[in-house]
């Protein structure tokens, strides 16, 4: 199995972020923050002690 040479690959032009990547990042982060807030509220009721 040949090891890719990262130094060469890093010289390649940067791939722009596709709209689907932006959606993936945005939706993941947004849902994550919302769920965390929910869990923090739950933790007020059942604290980890």
């Amino acid at each position, binding site marked *: *199995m*040949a*090891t*890719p*040479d*990262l*130094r060469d*690959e*890093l010289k*390649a032009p*940067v*791939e722009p*972020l*596709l709209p*689907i*990547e932006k959606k*993936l*990042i*945005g939706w*993941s*982060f947004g*849902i*994550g*923050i919302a*769920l*965390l807030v929910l*869990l*923090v509220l*739950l*933790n007020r009721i*059942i*604290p*980890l*002690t």
Partner: protein
Amino acid sequence: MLAVAIGLGVFALALVSLFGADALGWVATTSVWTNPTTALTTASKAYAGLGGLGALVLTYVALTAVLSAATYALGDDVRKFAIRFTVAFAIAYGAWFLGSWAYLAAVTPADQAKFGVSWSLKLTNEGGYIVALVAGLVIANVFPAFAEWLKSAIRPELYIKVAIVILGAFIAVTMAGKLTLASSLMLRGLAAIVEAYLIYWPVVYLIARKGFGFSREWSAPLASGVSICGVAAAIATGGAIRARPQVPVLVSSLVVIFAVVEVLILPVIAQTFMSHEPLVAAAWMGLAVKTDGAAVAAGGITQSLIQAKAAAEGINYQPGWMLSVTATVKVFIDVFIGVWAFILAYIWTNHVNPRPGAPKAKLAEIWERFPKFILGFVATFLIALALALGTDAGTSGKLATAIGEANVWRVIFFVLTFFSIGVLSDFRRLWQDGLGKLAAVYVVSLFGFVVWVGFVIS
């Protein structure tokens, strides 16, 4: 599935003692010592006639036989494995034995007086994990040819998975006496899933793509490696996005190296700043330290360091709880690797890189990428919990003793894991193959926010 079979085998043998026969009591265990000839003993007094050394030899023979059978099942060279495993076991157990030396392990002034030592590093006897890790690191970085020779016996993923399957029963017996711990753990496990997949992953991916200009092929496995669960997640993601096989392998080598750095640093930070919040510190280890082995290793070290500090202050935390929290948080995170890989596979094969005629993501991939050892963990947990809660006091007392004996095997697999992680951590790799920039993403992401966000939320 081999790890599940071995772990369930140990668990089943432990349960035999509920029917009167002690099938595991002969396993060797080490207590804190100043006179090495008195340190080794059998887990059960019923086998005391074997003597400590006899028990150790029997433990080694049984372990070698079982792991050689596993090696045969994998189609590898059994003789080669057995020879190298013998050396690895000798060093790893030797490190564990050294870690129980009173000058390293004695914690309280009363312990020091009992053992007649005027000072101690106060690591508890679980400091042996650190000695095993350091022994492995020395071999990897000072004697690389020896490390290479040992490789076929160095299987941290197998060892830690066996240990986690056994740990399931230990956690159940621990929780049976304190069910509020279970509900709190559920909540903490859910939070860990959200943080790893939905907070860390998109941020690390964005940093790799926009901040460092990595391609999608490199960024996705890297984001999974830093955010989720190290090696397993990087490889699952690499497969999901149809990356070249070498990409997740290179990312995995980074993950292993940085996991060791975390194991050496984070428990000390936890001991310094979180010694009065032991379960929170333990949850932090499960969330912040990547790879199952290193995370549980960090949980073990954190437990020994915090227990030592607390004991010196006259506080005795329940043994095993911190380790249970770390392992549970890690298992919760692992459960969703397959689901996340499927989501990425769907997006990549349909939107990012659709190729006419190329196979699309299939739901079956969720099961294919599901870490099967979790089934073993859940099985031992549920069976032990049902027995602990559903039987009379006499039987549940026997169960606690039986799981205690199984736990000695868990400790041995932990020691092998620590040693193996050390042997695989050749820090010179960071300067090879142009990994520096990849490592920079890792450092920025891991120590820039993954560790600290985990700290705050834990």
